[in-house]
Structures are given as C-alpha cells and as structure tokens.
C-alpha cells in the first residue's frame, strides 16, 4: 500500500540528492561515452573482419610508418596529464595556472591534428584506393573529429575559467571534469586504435 515518508526524512534525503546532482550529469556523460564507444567498436569490428576475410591483393599491401602515430600517442598521453594538472590547479583556485595547463592541452591536441594531417598527405594511398585505405581513413578520421571537438571544448573551458567573470571555477568544476573525462576517453580510443591499426 501507499505510504508517505515523514517530510523531515524526505528533506534530508532530498538535500543529499541535490548535493550529488553533478554526479548524475557525469553519469549521463558516461552513458553517452559508452554509446560513442560502441560506434568505434562497430568500426573496429568491421576493420578486423575485413582484415580477416577480405585480404588485399598482393602489391596493394601498405606498410604504415610508425614514427608519426607513435609521436601522436605520446602527445595524447601527455595531454591527458596536462589536463589533469589543469583540474588540480582550478580546484585550488589557481585559475591562471589552470588556464595555462588547458592551453597546453589544447596545443597538444592541435599538434596531434597537424601531425595527423601531415601523415595523411604523405601516405601513398587515398581514401578510395582499396578497402584497407578506406577503413584506415574512416577510423582515424572519425577519431580526428573527436579530437577536434575536444580541442574546441578545451579552448572554451579555458576561456571560461578566467578569473573575473569566468563561469568555470572551483565551485563549478563540472564543465572541466566533463571535458576531461571526454578527453581521456578519446585518448583511450586512440590507444586501442593505434594497437589495432598500426601494430597488429
């Protein structure tokens, strides 16, 4: 049957719920990232299946150069660390430091993208050359899109964390934390992508 709790208890529980409320925005973001991860999973599955059952004709096999993607992997891993630093600084109300670390992160993201474009221009194959080429560009391109979006968001956050009039502060950490989580996610995907595409 229906029972109604005493209102005092409700109030208590309720204020707890409200205090935790950033939490469930984070929860929503995580759910979204799982969905996003499934898109990549679909691409990976397609790529691996092609590799297994649609072998390329001889002479159409390309060796991918390792230096640039390895550099890119390092760039992204370092950028995850700098982002983390930014969060720490903001938490201590050191906004200028936080901004510096954020710009640093965005800078690393931009370098990543430039390296990726450089790699694209020097690859001996184009998008429509063969199945492997198409999948290669689809995967790295889709990931690059994520990096681009992430970099833009980092720049916005950096702007928003300025001292006077900025909306991202130690009281309002959610935007920074959300973008940070997204950035780590994009990082993680890159590592998987690097292993599957370049090392396997």
């Amino acid at each position, binding site marked *: 049957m229906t029972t109604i709790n005493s209102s005092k208890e409700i109030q208590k529980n309720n204020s707890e719920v409200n205090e935790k409320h950033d939490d469930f925005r984070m929860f929503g973001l995580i759910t979204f990232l799982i969905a996003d991860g499934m898109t990549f999973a679909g691409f990976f599955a397609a790529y691996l299946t*092609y590799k297994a059952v649609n072998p390329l004709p001889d002479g159409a096999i390309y060796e991918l150069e390792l230096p640039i993607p390895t550099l890119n992997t390092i760039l992204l891993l370092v950028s995850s660390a700098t982002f983390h630093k930014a969060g720490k600084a903001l938490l201590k109300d050191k906004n200028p430091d936080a901004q510096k670390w954020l710009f640093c992160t965005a800078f690393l993201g931009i370098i990543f993208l430039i390296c990726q474009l450089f790699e694209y221009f020097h690859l001996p194959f184009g998008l*429509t050359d063969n199945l492997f080429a198409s999948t290669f560009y*689809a995967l790295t391109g889709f990931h690059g899109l994520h990096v681009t979006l992430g970099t833009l968001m980092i720049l916005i956050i950096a702007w928003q964390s300025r001292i006077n009039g900025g909306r991202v502060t130690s009281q309002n950490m959610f935007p920074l934390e959300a973008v940070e989580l997204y950035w780590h996610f994009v990082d993680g995907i890159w590592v998987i992508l690097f292993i599957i595409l370049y090392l396997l």
Partner: protein
Amino acid sequence: MTISIDPQKTNNESLQPKGWLRYFSFSLDHKVIGIQYLVCGFLFYLIGGTLASAIRIELASPMSDFMPRDVYNQVLTLHGTIMIFLWIVPVVNGAFGNYLIPFYVGARDMAFPRLNAVAFWLIPPSGLMLVASYFVEGAAQAGWTAYPPLSITTPQSGQIIWIMSVLLLGGSSIFGGINFIATIIKLRRPGLKLMQLPMYCWAMLGTSILVVLSTPVLAGTLILLSFDIIANTGFFNPVLGGNVVVYQHLFWFYSHPAVYIMVLPAFGLVSEILPVHARKPLFGYTTMVFSIMGIVVLGLVVWAHHMFTSGTPPWMRLFFTIATAFIAVPTGIKFFNWVATLWGGKISINSAMLFSCGFIINFVFGGITGVALAQVPFDIHVHDTYFVVAHFHYIVYGGTVFIIFSSIYHWFPKVTGKMLNEKLGILHFIITFIGFNLCFAPQHWLGLNGMPRRVAEYDPQFQFVNQISSLGALLMAISTIPFLINIFLSMRNGQVSGDNPWKALTPEWLTSSPPPVENWEGEAPLVEEPYGYGKQFSEQK
C-alpha cells in the same frame, strides 16, 4: 512543503503558453514532451498506414498497375521506415516513457529536460525530410534494411536523405535512452528501491541499455554506407572489394535489438495495465525483472539469425539458433506471468483490457513463428517470403501497436481528466482484431507456399488469399475511424474521470488528473508496492 527532485528545471513555467498552446511549444515539461511524441508519432502512423493501404491495393491483384514498380519499392521502403523509426520506437519509448517514468520514480521531470526536448524536436524535421524526399527527388527504394549493393546502385539522393533521416532519429533515440537510464537510476525519489519500481521502469531501463549499446553501431554503419554512396569508397561494395555481409552483421547488431526496443516497453506497459484491470498484483515481479534483463543480454547476441542465408558458416548457425531459442525462455516466463496475473482476477472487460488480451494472443502467435524461424532449415525455406512478413507484423502490430492503443485507453483519463467512450473503444478493438488477423494470418500460408516478399507482382494462384489479406488491411484502416472519433468526442465532452478512475495504485494515479505542472502538490508519494491489490482486498475482507 515541496520536495524537488529536479535540480535542472530552470525554465520559468509561468512564461510557458497555457492550455493547448503549450503542446506546440518548446516545453521542457516531460508530460508535454510525452504527448508531443505521441501525437507526432500518430500522425506518422497515419502516413505509414496510408502507404500500407497503397501496398495492399497493389497486391489485391497479381498484376495490378496501381503503381509503377519503382514507386512500389519507394512506398514499401517509406512504409517500413516510417512505421519503425517514426511510429513504434518514438511512441512506445518516447511518449509513454516521458509521460510515465518521472511519475514512477517520484521525480518532477526527467534527469535532463533540455536533452529531452532536443530528442523530441529532432523527430518532426527528420521525418518530414524523409517523406519530402519522395516528392522532391524520389525516395529511397532499397527497403528499410537498405542492404547494399542495392542501396548503392539505386538512385542516390533519396537514399542519402533516408540515411540522414535515420541518423537523426537514431540520435534522438540515443539521447532519449541516456535520459531514461539517468532518470531511473539516479533520480529516484529517496527511499524508493529499484525492486519497488513499477515494471515499466524496468522495461525502459532494459530498452535504454539496448538503445545505448546498439544504435551507435547502426549510426556508424550508415555513415560508412553514405561514404560508399557519396565518396565512392568500397566498404560494402563487392565490386570495389567490399563485403556486403559485414553490413548485414552491423545492421542486424542494431536491428535485432531494435525489435526489443519496440516490444520490451510494450511488455512493461502491459504489465502495468493487466494488474489494474484484473485487480490482482502482478504475478512474479522478480522473475519479470530478471526475464527483462535476460532478454536484453540474449537480444544482443542473436542478430545473425537474420543471416542464415547469407553464407553464414555452420557453427555460427548453430550458435545463433540456440541463442535465439533461449530467448523463448524469458519471453515465455513473461507470458505465463501475465496469464497468471489474469487468472482468478476480477477482470473488467474494457477497451484497455481487450487490447492487452489481444496483445497476449497475437504475441504468442508471433513468438511461436519466431522460434520456428530460428531453425535454420525452416528459415531457409521461408526466407524472404510472406511468412516473415506475417511473423514480424504479428510482433510489431499485433504486439506493440495493440499495446499502444491499450495504453491510450488506459492513460487517457490521466492525461485529459476525461473518460473515453467504452462502446466506441470496444468497437475499435473488434474491428482492429478481426482486421489484423484477417490481414496477416493468411500471409503465413502465402509464405509457406512460396510467395516472395517485396514484390509487386505474384503468381495468380495466390490471388484469393491476398485479397483476404487486403480486406483485412481495409478493416484496419477503417478501425482508426472510431478511435479518432472517440478521442475527439471524449476530449470535448467526455465524462469527467476523477483522479483515479481505475482505482490503480501506481504513482501517476496518486495525483490529480490531469496532473499539475509540478506532478504533485507537495511531496511525491512513496509507493513501496505498486501492485498491492491482493493485500487491499484481504484487508477489506
């Protein structure tokens, strides 16, 4: 003293238009958005139904010239796409989910009201875009599955619009899914445990998990397909070294779970409706919860039963046959629990109950033919014949659409504060039930005897049975008339229902009808046992 479990409601309700106008505005109120989903979906249902009638007119004679052949393919494709992506999925998830879930978890709104509005407002434009492509450039004509290479070789602009539209609808459904998961898990009223939630919450939780895990895969696949069409890549084009079977795997990784995205919420809704009108607690609550989760897990691993004729290796056939057959177990549990809920209840014969019972009957039929189809030799025999068409219409129409109508009869008093006319409702049920079975039951026979699907011409020996089927479709079209009359008349001058006309115990009935903008005056009631009917009776005795 109000409890507010909606930290995000920032829009000033007093600035929102009042009365009917608010249903045409960008409202953040979950109740308004729910109704918007329902009405929008119903309009598309009328379009999709008109297209279905056109198909059945064409099929009423073996060589009819009602439409040119490519128009037939376009109409078929539009019909399937509209019915799935613009009617069933948005309505059974978006409409009822938005309306009911916040009540069921004791919240004043969804977890992310703005995301919710975005999810809804993606639908009308992308749906219109899809329909408009028919008039502008020639609609897609590769069927709702858009299998390559057909979808690559048919005229391209329509196919691209089709892809764009489905991508947007997929986005809408992912946003919705995220919102439902967050609302159910995180926004529950303090003191309300997961195992005290009404069954529809569990169904929506399961459905949303499926949405979040499988819809993105479809999105990725369609992006690759659009590359094949626009940029001439060869992912799925055998001529360029691509692999069509990969498309089928990825497509069905979404589209098999999609049948549960269409039917699990219906399971949830029927579990809400039966106990109320049979005045008995839902039988086997815990088994119901576990069977939903079982269906979710198994639903994700059986997709290849759609591909038995695509050169699937024998071990795969074996695995997917067994996994599919296993789904019959949780589904069977649910079926027996519904019957047990009815058993010995004080059943009131009203329209909601009739449609729910109709659902159970039709669904058993569709389920049994489904298990049959999972058996490889049988599937090879009837693949791409009308047997398949009959099977899935028994599920989607006989199952989900029946429950949509049942739910409308059940919750109309809540939404409007007015009762629907029972006589018209029962008339609606009788015509729908007869029309539906007349339309689709004979198609089993057609399929077993070899009439292929997706064709506009067929062997004259099938003419008579096809005409019966078309007659059934005509009845189904007619059946919407009493329904629409009923809705309009009852909304204008229906009998006033009172807050809780069915004497139900689920939380949405414990507030006024129609509910206030804030869902409750004061605190949300804590309903520890949403189906405590039996108790109530024993206490009364």
